[in-house]
């Protein structure tokens, strides 16, 4: 799926979620969760403060912020700039709280956030890299369901697999990705 098509898919899903569509909302949250985790992990690694627990906390904070502020998203605009704006704000907020602790040092946080390598394209390369570590069939099914927005039935028809097989592959792929992201692999 092209980046533009993915942007359109996410924007439409979020617009449905704003109208109360729980299935669409789950799709959006599952899709952006990996992106947020990668972005947060990258920032923490750049400033030498990577910790799986902190990255996970940041991810949860951002997901909660997305939920609380979903009314500020303009459905006619791409979703990712809105998401990255919230993520950057939450990371800066984390840095501000940490600075108040006398033993904490977050030197370089602003520079890390401002660096061009932390663009959407950079995170997208990470996402592609981490997906490439999955077995081919698993990656194919995951991309169809979670990135291209196909239903389980459509993905099953395309891959000649049963629907239950597709569900199992997606579940395993997400579990593997969470584990890799938590360990900071492929970044």
């Amino acid at each position, binding site marked *: 799926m092209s980046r533009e098509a993915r942007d359109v898919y996410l924007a439409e899903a979020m617009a449905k979620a704003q109208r109360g569509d729980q299935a669409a909302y789950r799709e959006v949250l599952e899709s952006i969760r990996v992106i947020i985790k990668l972005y947060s992990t990258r920032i923490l690694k750049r400033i030498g403060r990577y910790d799986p627990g902190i990255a*996970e906390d940041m991810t949860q904070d951002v997901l909660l912020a997305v939920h609380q502020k979903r009314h*500020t998203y*303009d459905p006619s605009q*791409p979703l990712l*700039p809105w998401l990255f*704006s919230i993520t950057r*704000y939450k990371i800066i907020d984390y840095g501000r709280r940490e600075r108040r602790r006398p033993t904490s040092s977050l030197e370089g946080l602003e520079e890390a956030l401002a660096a061009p390598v932390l663009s959407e394209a950079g995170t997208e390369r990470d996402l592609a890299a981490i997906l490439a570590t999955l077995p081919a069939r698993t990656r194919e099914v995951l991309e169809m369901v979670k990135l291209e927005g196909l239903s389980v039935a459509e993905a099953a028809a395309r891959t000649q697999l049963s629907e239950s097989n597709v569900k199992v592959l997606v579940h395993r792929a997400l579990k593997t990705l969470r584990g890799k992201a938590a360990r900071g692999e492929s970044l």
Partner: protein
Amino acid sequence: MSDPIDALVRDLSPVVPRSSLRITAAWVASATLFGLASVLFILGWRSDWIEVRFSLSYWLAGGALALTLFTAARLGICLSMPGARVSPGLRLAPGAGLVLTLVMFVILHVTSGNAGDLATGLAATGWSCSVALAALSILPGLLLLTFMRRLAVTEPAGAATALGMAMGAAGAMAIGCHCDSTNAAHLLVFHGVPLMLMPVVIRLVGKRLLRW
């Protein structure tokens, strides 16, 4: 790690996407109505209204303040909408409006013909204008702050500065409908200084209030 997502999905309810333009327009309209009501029912209209209504420089000074009011409010609201494109022009416009206003104060003095000398413009009674300007800016400021806090401010310092500019412009527009002085010293000191100070003060205080 699906538990947090499950909880968020269960908590989902429909929301209405906010429009930065509608919120800005609503605030500008409210601030204008409040200012007009304050002048009409409390302070009283300026006594030289009949003369100045044909004064181009008076209208230009008012126009500069209106420009500051609208662009500062728009900037503050846009900085409260994550991902909103804020052009360099929008960031500069409120400051440019402020500078233009101060320039127009001087032009008003030069063109009015009855402004008096600068020393008389600095009479102590002029402080009542500064106090009234500040007082008239409070309610519009609280309203705009409420709007912004209900959004998601991603640049608290910049948004607070814009808030201060919008508040100051609202107060200055209202007091401009009451105060009949065209003396540059009076306008620059008792109207202009509060206008310039308000963004500085509100930036210091407001950036903490706008965090979420």
